[in-house]
């Protein structure tokens, strides 16, 4: 186990707004990554850096491997039968796929939110947020600490004022947009250094989408955000950097303004101008 993955985050409730360190070492660096389903290579030889505290959007047409790439970053890809990964994913310089690294520990440090809201239907709103804290039997916070973390996470997700009076209600009573922000709060409760969003607004109405996008804005600087989206306007609105994928390959990556205005690759330009996809 690497140092970083075993060290618990500081217990303080206040979260410091970290800035990217001056040396600009990326929070996550992907090297020569292949992701396979049986013999099908869904992601091919991808190299990409995700800078600390920034929002990176991964865009591309359906089936280009963007979600698969995302799922390689917290070792969720391998939970699918016959799925394999080759290459390296370095979190703060430590390879997540090195021998002896426990994927369960990795997932505790890299949060993930899915396309459809996935609140646990048998749990209350409060217990949903605290679910990640209870994932292991070791080092569980006390009830009071848990209360504080739940409140802080719900505030971060902009949901506290909407649910503070019904924390004991079933999470399924919330609207779709609220459920998705609850899932973000749940992912943030364990204080991950990176959060992965897999088309988080795909099933939401425009107003809920806007709220989630605003939330992504407020997360910037606190955590490293990687968001997969098929919506280019969304990528342009929320991200600092954009990566464009096509047929399993990473075509281009750079600052969002650059990728959208002066793309280097003609395929990127074709996609962004709407010639295909």
């Amino acid at each position, binding site marked *: 186990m690497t140092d970083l993955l075993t060290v618990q985050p500081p217990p303080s409730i206040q979260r410091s707004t970290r800035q990217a360190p001056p040396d600009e070492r990326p929070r996550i660096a992907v090297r020569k990554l292949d992701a396979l389903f049986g013999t099908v290579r869904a992601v091919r030889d991808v190299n990409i850096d995700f800078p600390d505290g920034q929002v990176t959007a991964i865009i591309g047409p359906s089936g280009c491997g963007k979600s698969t790439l995302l799922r390689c970053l917290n070792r969720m890809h391998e939970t699918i039968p016959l799925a394999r990964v080759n290459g390296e994913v370095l979190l703060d310089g430590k390879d997540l796929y090195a021998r002896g690294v426990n994927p369960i520990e990795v997932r505790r440090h890299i949060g993930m939110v899915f396309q459809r809201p996935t609140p646990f*239907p*048998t749990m209350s709103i409060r217990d949903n947020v605290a679910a990640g804290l209870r*994932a292991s039997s070791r080092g569980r916070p006390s009830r009071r600490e848990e209360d504080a973390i739940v409140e802080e996470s719900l505030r971060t997700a902009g949901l506290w004022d909407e649910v503070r009076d019904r924390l004991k209600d079933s999470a399924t009573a919330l609207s779709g947009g609220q459920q998705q922000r609850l899932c973000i709060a749940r992912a943030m409760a364990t204080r991950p250094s990176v959060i992965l969003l897999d088309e988080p607004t795909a099933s939401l109405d425009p107003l809920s989408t806007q709220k989630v996008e605003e939330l992504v804005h407020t997360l910037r600087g606190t955590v490293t955000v990687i968001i997969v989206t098929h919506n280019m306007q969304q990528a342009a609105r929320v991200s600092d950097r954009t990566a464009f994928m096509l047929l399993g390959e990473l075509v281009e990556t750079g600052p969002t303004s650059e990728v959208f205005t002066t793309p280097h690759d003609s395929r990127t330009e074709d996609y962004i101008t709407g010639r295909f996809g």
Partner: protein
Amino acid sequence: MVGLMGFAALLATLPLIFVLIHLIRQGASSIDLAFFTRMPRPVGEAGGGMANAITGTLILVSIAASIGLPVGIGAGLYLAEQRGARLATTVRFLSDVLNGMPSIVMGIFAWHFLVRPVGHFSALAGGVALGAMMIPLVTRATEEMVRTVPTALREAALALGYPRWRTSVAIVLRTALPGIVTAALVAVARIAGETAPLLFTAFGNQFWSVSLSQPIASLPHTIYTYAKSPYDDWHRLAWAGALVLIALVLVISILARFVTRSRHGGVGD
């Protein structure tokens, strides 16, 4: 065509309606407090009840449930979570075979292993025979219920850093629980009325007994004995016993429906 099918649907419920009406007409008059609290009287004496048979059935069902539920739920969870594994495919097939096995065969099996070596009939042997019948019922029902839990929930738990086993128990099983409880109650109702497996295991008992190592009375078996006797008094008691048995099954079924609609209800809301 629709009319024909509607008629068939009505016909399907007809046996239940006939049975209920007949049982109530024949048996209701014999049911009083004494029926539940008193022991059977000798032939010719009026009154008496089936306290021993009712208690016996409750004991037998408890033994069966304490075997059938844990094994069945565990196996069902395994089958659903390890869908493609060779062991799962084999177990699923064997479980279906077991489900179709005549209950008298289950009784012979229990007799061979639990009665013959000991030398006498026992409540335990009867309970084990019923428990073995319960296992495939609960296994398949649990598997069905666990499969209805969306993959997305499983993934969400894994992504939070839940180990696989904890995901299975704390998220998947917990979400499917109302359905599993319903299935368990239906299975209990089903075996509560079984007679064949008890014929040479629990055997039946004229007297009061709650010992697991002794023969024990049960409702179905007492009904069988009384119904084939030549005495009118016993016939009336048999009708009453049948009514109580049906009522028990009905109550459990209604309870099962109620559980499905509980708050924080799992799948599908």
